[in-house]
């Protein structure tokens, strides 16, 4: 497997604040990596470093390039949508297509037009971005991005502020129009539950450090949730859960690489959701 993104000991300081602290990870081709972390965890800083928007310490290679120093070459093969990288409000839909068409060597105008035809923006080619709803702007942005033959797509809170229908549509369009085994996606979002079904890999980041980096398959093998109560709960607790919470009078405990057969004797076993695992990991890191 080839690594599209390779980070070794990457750090970034803002004054005295260490936003990213000695982070190392690899992202391989054809993966959909979810980068999950609380606000201020360093997600956006890390993405900026990957996009060459900010310099950093350590070794960082994206598509074999130094992102900060070879940004133009990089941008031919990377696309990103970020809630902070908004489309200019004054531009018309048709002008935006003209501009990307004339500056981006890997952009297919035909593909963008046909993707747009399937959206609410279809009849609004002469409208300015400011006249479109937020949902339409996201559809427009995704249509443009999906029409770029890019190797890596970076999404930073792409569905922030959208209603549930647009959010669902966004991710289903992402999979149908953009993703294939030649392409790779790195996505951050707070709405973890909406993307956990599409991820192949997940990485948790907190206070600038990576606290978990696993494939989704190994995650379900490594972590297990037990629902139990009463005496069983006391016995299970002796096996060292990494987190525990109460639901309807029952105890729900989360274990890392437990003896499943033994644990199964105490109650029902489930694969934990990413959100629950995330909360457990963050609390565990804080404890």
């Amino acid at each position, binding site marked *: 497997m080839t690594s599209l993104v390779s980070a070794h000991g990457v750090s970034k300081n803002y004054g005295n604040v260490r936003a990213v602290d000695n982070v190392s990870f690899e992202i391989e081709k054809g993966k959909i990596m979810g980068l999950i972390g609380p606000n201020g965890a360093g997600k956006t800083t890390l993405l900026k470093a990957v996009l060459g928007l900010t310099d950093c310490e350590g070794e960082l290679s994206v598509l074999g390039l130094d992102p900060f120093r070879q940004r133009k070459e990089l*941008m031919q093969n990377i*696309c990103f949508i970020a809630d*902070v990288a908004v489309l*200019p409000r*004054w531009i*018309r839909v048709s*002008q935006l297509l003209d*501009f990307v068409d004339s*500056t981006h060597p890997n952009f297919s105008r035909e593909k963008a037009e046909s993707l747009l035809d399937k959206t609410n923006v279809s009849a609004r080619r002469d409208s300015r971005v400011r006249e479109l709803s937020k949902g339409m702007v996201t559809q427009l942005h995704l249509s443009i991005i999906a029409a770029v033959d890019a190797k890596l797509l970076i999404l930073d809170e792409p569905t922030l502020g959208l209603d549930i229908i647009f959010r669902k549509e966004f991710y289903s369009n992402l999979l149908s129009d953009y993703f294939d085994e030649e392409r790779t996606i790195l996505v951050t979002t707070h709405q973890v539950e909406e993307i956990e079904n599409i991820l192949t890999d997940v990485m948790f980041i907190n206070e600038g450090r990576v606290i978990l980096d696993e494939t989704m398959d190994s995650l379900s093998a490594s972590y297990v949730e037990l629902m139990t109560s009463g005496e069983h709960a006391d016995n299970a607790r002796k096996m060292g859960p990494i987190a525990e919470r109460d639901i309807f009078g029952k105890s729900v405990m989360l274990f890392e690489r437990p003896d499943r057969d033994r644990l199964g004797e105490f109650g029902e076993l489930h694969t934990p959701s990413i959100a629950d695992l995330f909360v457990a990991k963050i609390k565990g890191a804080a404890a």
Partner: protein
Amino acid sequence: MIANQIALIRREFWEHRSIWVTPAAVAVVVSLVSLAALVTVSAFDREVHLAIFSAANLAGDAERQAALTMYFLATSWIFLVSLAILTIFYSLDSLYSERKDKSILFWRSMPITDSETVVSKLLTAVLMLPLVTVAVIMATHFINLIVSSIWIAIQGGDAGHIVWGSVALFDNWTAALLFTLASALWMSPFIGWFLFVSAFTKRAPLLMAFMPLILIPIIEWLFFRSKIFLEAVLDRGDLNPLLRGVDFERLFDEDKLKVNEEAIRLLAQLDIGDFIVSPSLWAGFVVCGLFTTAAIYVRRFRDES
């Protein structure tokens, strides 16, 4: 590279419609004032316009040409004033608005370098704005000459002779083009400074751009009792080497009450050679280059978070 520049400059025209709306608005005002002048003259006694026609008919070619050239200058200077104001606002807005509306990260997600983007804004300010303004000056001049011809024809005058036989279109228009472009090049250090302020400031670009121009001379005077900075700035406004040859007294020979024929040609007033070899011009380019480089640096290295 060139394809990107064309796309980027076209983008500037989309975003800043004032590039053509401003000269177009001035054109409407100038044309209306010209028309009002014709109407006003028509309202006077028949003797007045007869006097105008007989004067126009009796005057020599040189006088008629001088009168039409004066008319061209009188209607054109206001475009240059509006161009100066437009250039200031355009340059100050060019790298500021993309940060204010947060679209900068979208633009930076395209495979375009920061240098290409900033250079496209410099080229727009130094070349495209003057070119658009000159094109509108020419169009306005042409339209107003046609309107004047119609008026003269209605009054029974010979427009072909009075207007079209006398107007020095090539001279007037070429001089307008050269003067406008040369003025923009001459003022390029200010344009570079405005681009830098636009890339750099977090708020109030207009204030940030002009405050140092006022504060530095005051501080310099208080501490050093010198006026080097102030004089350098004022000289830039004053001493365009292109116009060094202009001598308004040569235009009209008072003793003979006659227009001086070789002096009424606008092109003859402009000293292109002197302008191009002027060290001040090239010093200005260096200053413009330094500020533009600084603007590129700021856009490239500043972290927007």
